[in-house]
């Protein structure tokens, strides 16, 4: 039994090291291609773009979101903005009505049907060759769109370009931990971009060619992660997705553990279920690194975290049990000598060194991701407490997402 446990553990560690090394090698291969533009750029021609802002009860943030779009460095006559109220029950409709007189803004109101239906309403009214979405809790950097459009300009085979999403106004430690995570996300997304293996085209400001929707159809429910489903569909049809690292979008992140938990259950649930829906894409050479690297590694990380969690719970229960036995046997004893540090007792098992390698590579990805996202090549305290915060809570949302999947995917009665 113990042997099986150790073997599984070793395999999972091996695959985790493999994934991190794979990212690192990709970085070394492509590091010269990572360009971080500082100033304004111009394009030879400016293709017309439509950006849809679907909102459901976003009265507090939507105005700022629209204002950020209005201050984009992009010709006004080439930028169409759709404000779509997806049946909000708060003051959102009144807030977006303030923009009714702007020549390049159109306002829509519909019954609540979920974000993908709001986006599809936008697509139905689309007149331009490019379409993007901006969540109503996110704000764009004024240079973001033009930088994204330069990618399409340089390579006609690119079908979608995702931006670098970073955290807006992080106040508490949960948000700071997420900030470190988003920085890491920027790095991983760039590397996946080099591998042609991006699996999410995030809600905040991914720009698509209209052709994507013409060829592959509109947004789908996608288990509440329509931005993941469309990316899977594009990968399945071998449509190229790029990542524009210097196009910055700032998003509001959950400020409490409960909200973060809900968000992540949705994401992981989306990952699991979209992967199940697109299981035929797995391990097929023709789908490239998306099929051989992104999806398997995502699945492995779910297993690793669940397994690690099981181990931690087991060890913790064991520890508590031992302590209870100790207390029952000898009672609480204040006479016990204080702990004396002796290097002899430092764990030097091989796993210990491998875990250090993994942590080192993860911290590197955060530091370099921060360099790409904020221009600073530096360590931040959030990077340190990312580990405890996420390793304590992540297993819960993972297990909840797995649990939800199992319940929902129960075979039908007949």
């Amino acid at each position: 039994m113990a042997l099986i446990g150790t073997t599984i553990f070793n395999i999972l560690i091996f695959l985790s090291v493999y994934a991190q090394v794979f990212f690192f090698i990709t970085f070394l291969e492509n590091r010269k291609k990572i360009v971080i533009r500082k100033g304004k750029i111009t394009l030879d021609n400016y293709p017309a773009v439509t950006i849809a802002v679907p909102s459901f009860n976003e009265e507090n943030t939507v105005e700022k979101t629209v204002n950020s779009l209005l201050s984009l460095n992009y010709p006004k006559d080439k930028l169409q903005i759709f404000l779509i109220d997806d049946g909000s029950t708060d003051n959102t409709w009144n807030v977006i009505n303030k923009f009714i007189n702007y020549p390049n803004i159109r306002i829509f109101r519909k019954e609540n049907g979920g974000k993908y239906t709001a986006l599809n309403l936008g697509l139905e009214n689309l007149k331009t060759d490019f379409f993007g979405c901006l969540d109503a809790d996110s704000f764009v950097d004024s240079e973001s769109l033009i930088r994204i459009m330069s990618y399409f300009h340089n390579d006609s085979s690119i079908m979608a370009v995702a931006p670098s999403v970073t955290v807006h106004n992080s106040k508490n430690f949960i948000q700071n931990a997420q900030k470190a995570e988003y920085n890491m996300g920027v790095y991983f997304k760039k590397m996946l971009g080099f591998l042609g293996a991006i699996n999410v085209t995030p809600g905040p400001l991914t720009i698509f060619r209209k052709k994507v929707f013409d060829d592959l159809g509109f947004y789908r429910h996608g288990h509440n992660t329509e931005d993941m489903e469309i990316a899977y569909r594009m990968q399945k049809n071998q449509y190229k997705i790029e990542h524009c690292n210097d196009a910055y979008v700032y998003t509001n992140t959950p400020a409490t553990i409960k909200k973060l938990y809900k968000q992540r259950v949705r994401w992981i649930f989306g990952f699991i279920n979209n992967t199940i829906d697109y299981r035929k894409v797995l391990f097929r050479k023709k789908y490239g690194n998306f099929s051989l690297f992104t999806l398997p590694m995502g699945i492995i990380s779910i297993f690793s975290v669940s397994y690690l969690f099981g181990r931690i719970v087991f060890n913790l229960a064991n520890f508590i049990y031992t302590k209870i036995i100790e207390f029952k046997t000898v009672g609480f004893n204040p006479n016990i000598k204080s702990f004396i540090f002796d290097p002899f007792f430092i764990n030097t098992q091989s796993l210990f060194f491998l875990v250090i390698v993994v942590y080192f590579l993860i911290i590197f990805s955060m530091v370099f991701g921060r360099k790409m996202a904020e221009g600073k090549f530096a360590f931040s305290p959030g990077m340190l407490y990312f580990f405890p915060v996420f390793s304590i809570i992540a297993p819960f949302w993972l297990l909840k997402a797995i649990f939800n999947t199992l319940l929902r995917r129960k075979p039908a009665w007949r």
Partner: protein
Amino acid sequence: MNSNQIDWKKYLIVLLITTGLFFTAIYLSNYFGNQKIGQLKTIQDKIAIDILSSETQFSLLSELSCKNIHDSVFSTELEELGNKLEWSQDNLGATEEVSYLKKYYSLLQIKDYLLSKKISARCGVKSAFILYFYTTAANCSECEKEGLVLSNLRKEYPELRVYSFDYSTDLSAVTSMLQIYKIKDTELPALVIDDEVLTGFHGIEELKLRIKESFKLQEVKPIKS
């Protein structure tokens, strides 16, 4: 449309690097494991010298006086070695080397016990001994509890010397001890206090009473942190 081909060479290179990292980690682990075993050996040698020296000192002084013999005679490192060996068994794996060291440790304990007993008899040095027999071969939860009781007792009474023996140690000296006290593997844990054999679990309060009676020991005052 997707220009991304699979770069098999890269998958292979990453596999090689990862395997390399694994072997390096295993190598490092072995290296430090050996260092630790080396450290254990050094401690054991030191204890062996201490005991030998004490024996010699004892023989030299036996006809004269016991004055100089008091504190220096008791090797203080036996407990440390015991803890480290136990840790090594759990963390380095029960390798041959660790079990060999364990045998040696048992032998040193017996020697220390005999010598201390002799000194205390001859010179009237106040000392108290408990021989403790346990097993690691079977799942013995009572043994774990007894171990906890004894380590607590040892902290409360620094003069108390506890010698612990794994029943399954394949060493004739340990076997002799088992025979002398007629200890069976079905009756573990077993304690020998003042030549009296106690089998099964015995709580801390009971043992405290016994050792107070047998050895007239004084409790240490709680350390204030």
